[in-house]
């Protein structure tokens, strides 16, 4: 038991370390000092309150969307459309945030968050979830297609569409102060969304391990046939799991919109929904693991520019490291077998 639990933690950690090792080799080949590069990266990510806040700012949407993806993995589903659900959440939160007037903060802000959450949830559950449950249409295909629709819908809305703010920039009007998530660390972009993300992780853990619904999700995810034989309504579990997953991705979009961007715009920070898949995988679909993996990706993102400035290593190296992490997660069988062999040798010695 303890050894399998230790392996469960050790394998992703080793994946990350190996990725950094390979990344270091690439730094050497490109004629730079890998140690300096990684020191710069670390400092850029954690070296000051400001840097740490930057890291966590990027981590927050990854945490929330990553929890969502992990939840569907637990149900045996592969929701790769978190990106689309994130955009729907952003759209809904932004609209409620700027278009609804005259509400006090304690009504307006929760309402905007709720709108984003619900929009993401319905985007995942109504079409991909229902199709999967009753026709067996594969959620990988449907969630991906729904993502394209959502992304292009967002573009349309702010590029000449009904949500475009006056002027020439493709963006929505700014959300009202009553719908803005306040900063957690003044002077940084880090908002109270971090608290929401941690609470969401606690909630996901609680749902999975303490509720009958979570029990159904885990059982159906591991063996849908046995779940059906045991009397569980697997179609209902699929739709609800997609709902929860989409809700978390939608909340990620809402938090980003209300806490960081303060409006909907066609931003370079898109892609959280895709990175969230890797975050879920690296976190082994465990809520705490997802939080840790999201912080790692936040750190890579936040530290990359420091690395470029201080060590002269192109920030794109971070992409290489990220790619390597994905690679080593995919081949974690190799790491497992190496672990097994070293343990055996240790036992014999």
């Amino acid at each position: 038991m303890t050894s399998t639990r230790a392996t469960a933690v050790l394998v992703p950690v080793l994946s990350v370390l190996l990725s950094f090792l390979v990344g270091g080799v690439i730094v050497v080949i490109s004629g730079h000092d890998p140690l300096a590069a990684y020191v710069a990266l670390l400092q850029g990510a954690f070296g000051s309150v400001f840097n740490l806040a930057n890291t966590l700012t990027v981590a927050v949407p990854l945490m929330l969307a990553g929890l969502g993806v992990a939840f569907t993995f637990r149900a045996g589903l592969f929701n790769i459309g978190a990106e689309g659900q994130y955009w729907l959440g952003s759209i809904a939160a932004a609209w409620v945030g700027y278009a609804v007037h005259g509400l006090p903060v304690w009504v307006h802000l929760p309402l905007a968050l709720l709108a984003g959450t619900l929009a993401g949830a319905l985007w995942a559950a109504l079409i991909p979830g229902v199709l999967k449950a009753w026709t067996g249409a594969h959620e990988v295909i449907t969630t991906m297609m729904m993502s394209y629709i959502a992304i292009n819908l967002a573009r349309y809305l702010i590029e000449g569409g009904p949500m475009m703010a006056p002027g020439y920039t493709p963006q929505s009007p700014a959300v009202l102060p009553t719908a803005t998530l306040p900063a957690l660390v003044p002077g940084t972009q880090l908002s109270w969304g971090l608290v929401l993300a941690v609470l969401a992780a606690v909630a996901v853990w609680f749902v999975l391990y303490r509720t009958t619904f979570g029990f159904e999700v885990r059982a159906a995810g591991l063996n849908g046939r046995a779940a059906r034989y045991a009397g569980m309504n697997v179609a209902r579990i699929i739709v609800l799991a997609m709902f929860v997953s989409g809700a978390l991705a939608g909340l990620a979009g809402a938090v980003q919109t209300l806490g960081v961007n303060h409006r909907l715009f066609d931003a370079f920070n898109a892609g959280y929904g895709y990175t969230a898949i890797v975050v879920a995988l690296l976190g082994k679909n465990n809520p705490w693991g997802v939080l840790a993996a999201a912080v790692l990706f936040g750190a890579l993102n936040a530290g990359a520019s420091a690395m470029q400035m201080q060590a002269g290593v192109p920030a794109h190296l971070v992409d290489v490291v990220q790619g390597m992490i994905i690679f080593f997660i995919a081949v974690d069988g190799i790491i497992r077998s190496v672990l097994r062999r070293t343990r055996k040798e240790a036992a014999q010695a």
Partner: protein
Amino acid sequence: MDVVLELKGITKRFPGVVANDRVDLDLRRGEIHAVLGENGAGKSTIMKIVSGLYSPDEGTILLEGRPVRFAGPREAITAGIGMVHQHFMLIPVMTVAENIVLGREPARGLALDVRRAREDVRQLSARYGLEIDPDRLVGELSVGLQQRVEILKAFYRGANILILDEPTAMLTPQEARELFRIMRELARSGVSIFFISHKLDEVMEVADRVSVMRQGRRVATLPAAETSPEQLAELMVGRSVLLRVERGEHRPGEPVLAVEGLGRAARGGRAALADISFEVRAGEIFGLAGVEGNGQQELVEVLAGLLKPDRGTVRLGGVDVTGRSPRQLFEMGVAYIPPDRQAEGLVLDLTVAENLALKDYYRAPLARRGLIDVKRLAERARALVVEYDVRPANPAAVARTLSGGNQQKVILGREVSSSPRLLIAAQPTRGLDVGAIEFVHRRLLALRDSGAAVLLSSLELDEILSLADRIGVMYKGRLVAVLDADEATRERVGLLMTGATAAAPAGAGTAAAGAGAEEVRRP
């Protein structure tokens, strides 16, 4: 009799287990040597070493007195050792002749010399008395005949040592008897046979010598004539075992399950059901016998709420429950042990405690308002694990780490502890060893004696004959006969299973059985 094959001190280790521990074994020319043991005793491993699939970590193999080392199955075949696996390795869309010569085809230029292949096969089957039509498609043959093709395949490659791995697992009693006849003839003509089995009566019937394996070791080798099933069972398990659980008097009560005119068209790869009517009463075990694929499993799944019937009604204690869901049936007191415990009965990666709660996790006392009472769940699991003798008695163990027998005990504990009115048990002892079978049988009988109705579907005729108070026989989706236990003999039920009518006299059975069995085609 001289020794053709001798194994000396064979040891094979896998990570965490010693599968074979200094095993000595010898095979004499023209003998049938049974290798008997429970699942995991190491009998398959040792045979895979003999047939070149594994290489031993220690020890030597002597073939005709000379040490040999096989780098793969191909070399073992060249040396004259042929293995017939439990699951056939045949290509259904090719003919018998094509399958037999596959890999060593007689060629004319680049093309297969069909005429010579056919001729070779004809000669081979005449020489060994294994009749078969070389031009039939393998997919059209009965399981018994497919096995014959596998045996011929081995001979075509020059085998004079034959390893049969659980060869009767898929056969009807008649087909098994025919196989034993062939085995004896082959032995007489000088072929030496290793016969792997965990069925005592088969071993007693056909083997010259019996080697018993337990926990990777060979614990005894005895002439079959000088041993008894009881002694063999004790050697296998390491303690004395009751081979036939005592069945108390049959005191049937009110009908619990009443099925009338049940029908379902064949679809989705599932066999058809036609006009099935029967009753199962309180305090009785109703056995459902039949060759695999004749609708038993479909019938069982309709009754468990997993398949919807097209016609007919299912009544439970007088209430029409046709088409109700598994959950609704569970709440009305129907328990179900599915035939495939790993794919259908358990969620292998959940804990034992969670698997024990797989059916009633949602209601009191385990849950209230959607929240699971983790403490209650663990407490109940601790009690059930002890009551049903699950080993290790650790509710937090992941189900996958348990042996097959203990996995089945978890399912049995879950289903029986719900105090069902009706227990549907589909092949509850498939793949289990003697000790675990005894446990399951005792529990089924105890449930029956406590007044529940039990529907037992099994491919093991002996199991049905020893447990059931009444026996229904399925053939091609129909319930062709229902017999009382005291009028059901092995021969009679075996014949009914192959589609012979109930009126056929039991005495004429044996002669007709072989022919009858061959006509059965399975999907």
